[in-house]
């Protein structure tokens, strides 16, 4: 063992995280190298002293300050548009739908790379791989097929993600329409124009998907990106940022 090895291993050694053989070699080196011995002893002394630093008590005013800030934040919440509150509630679910879709796309892409004939080489049993999505659906998928392939599973996740996005867009549109009275006529016109554009492009994507026999994951990926853009737009609109 050389001095530069000691430099690399010293922290693990003093924390007891180094295996026995290397610890022994390192100790052997320390017996014959004064500078390394001092360096390791200093590091251990620093570690010991730092670990014994006294805990720091916060001042009594900290809790009062936290309570005040929480109260202020709750009052602000009460003044926010209803849509903002709704958005905060659904955002984690939307994120999950996006993640599930991304995972499904990744699986499908993997399959496309490894198979390509419409059948993966060896179907994988997924009996014990119930997804969180399934759990969220309240166990409705208890009779999940035991020989479901990667592709079937990916397609199921994609369909579910698609439905989740559509349901949330529909709900957002309904909520946005309730805020419409607060908008100027220019804002309402701009909103309608943008929504019509979203409808047109979405329809194009869906038609392309229906005719796309290859099932290439990129096509659906673009559709999901479009859904996310519409959701972002609807939320901005509801927050007066048209």
């Amino acid at each position: 063992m050389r001095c530069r090895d000691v430099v690399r291993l010293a922290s693990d050694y003093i924390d007891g995280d180094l295996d026995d053989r290397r610890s022994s070699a390192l100790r052997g080196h320390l017996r014959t190298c004064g500078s390394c011995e001092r360096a390791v002893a200093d590091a251990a002394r620093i570690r010991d002293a730092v670990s014994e630093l006294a805990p720091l008590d916060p001042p009594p005013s900290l809790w009062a300050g936290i309570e005040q800030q929480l109260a202020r934040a709750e009052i602000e919440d009460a003044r926010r548009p209803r849509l903002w509150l709704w958005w905060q509630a659904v955002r984690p679910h939307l994120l999950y739908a996006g993640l599930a879709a991304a995972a499904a796309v990744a699986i499908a892409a993997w399959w496309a790379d490894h198979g390509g004939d419409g059948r993966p080489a060896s179907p994988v049993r997924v009996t014990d791989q119930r997804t969180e999505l399934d759990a969220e659906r309240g166990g409705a998928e208890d009779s999940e097929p035991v020989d479901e392939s990667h592709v079937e599973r990916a397609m199921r996740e994609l369909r579910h993600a698609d439905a989740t996005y559509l349901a949330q867009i529909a709900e957002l549109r309904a909520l946005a329409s309730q805020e419409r009275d607060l908008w100027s006529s220019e804002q309402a016109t701009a909103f309608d124009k943008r929504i019509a554009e979203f409808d047109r492009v979405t329809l194009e994507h869906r038609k392309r998907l229906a005719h796309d026999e290859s099932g290439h994951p990129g096509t659906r990926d673009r559709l999901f990106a479009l859904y996310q853009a519409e959701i972002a737009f609807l939320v901005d609109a509801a927050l007066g940022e048209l």
Partner: protein
Amino acid sequence: LDIVATTKKPMTIVRPASRRARSIEDEDDGELIDACRRGERRAMEALYHRYKRRVFGLVTRIVGSSDSEEVAQEVFVRIYRGISRFRGDSALGTWIYRLAVNAALSHVTRRPRIADGEEALSRVAAPEAAPIDPGLSARLERALLQLPAGYRAVLVLHDVNGLSHEECAEILGCRVGTSKSQLHKARARMRDLLGPDLAPDDADRVEPEGV
């Protein structure tokens, strides 16, 4: 000389008891989380008392004492406002530490000039009982404040709070190897900063006889 040197007493490494005793997880965190989600004030206060020292100590040692109360307050507000989104993928303690480290590091980034010197140290709450030489303690705190913020974070998490490298890596969003190398560099920098101030404890150093 070789014969004398090889008969030197090898330096034995003992982990301090305080490092072994601490754990990031508390058994009944689940009930506390549920009650906090329902907005129960007593539960929120209980959570505060459970984590106040860990959060305040971590934040103080990263941002310095002048801004520590402001940042600790921000951390707890984020905890309560965000606990409904806590999915339990990690331990509650890990999640709280992550919020605290992120808030402290972004505060340091926003305001890079932290308070330093004796004035800042004097405002660090006095310890209930000083387990080590108070002079050394002050020198350590001063040296800590001079470390780069990233080194400070890993040193405080690992050496002060006694977390494992796996926990540090999860909190800091890095690999275990990175946590280890950062800690190693932090300790080396501490050694440079302390220099002669690192009072040697001759008890564990045996010089070769007759040299």
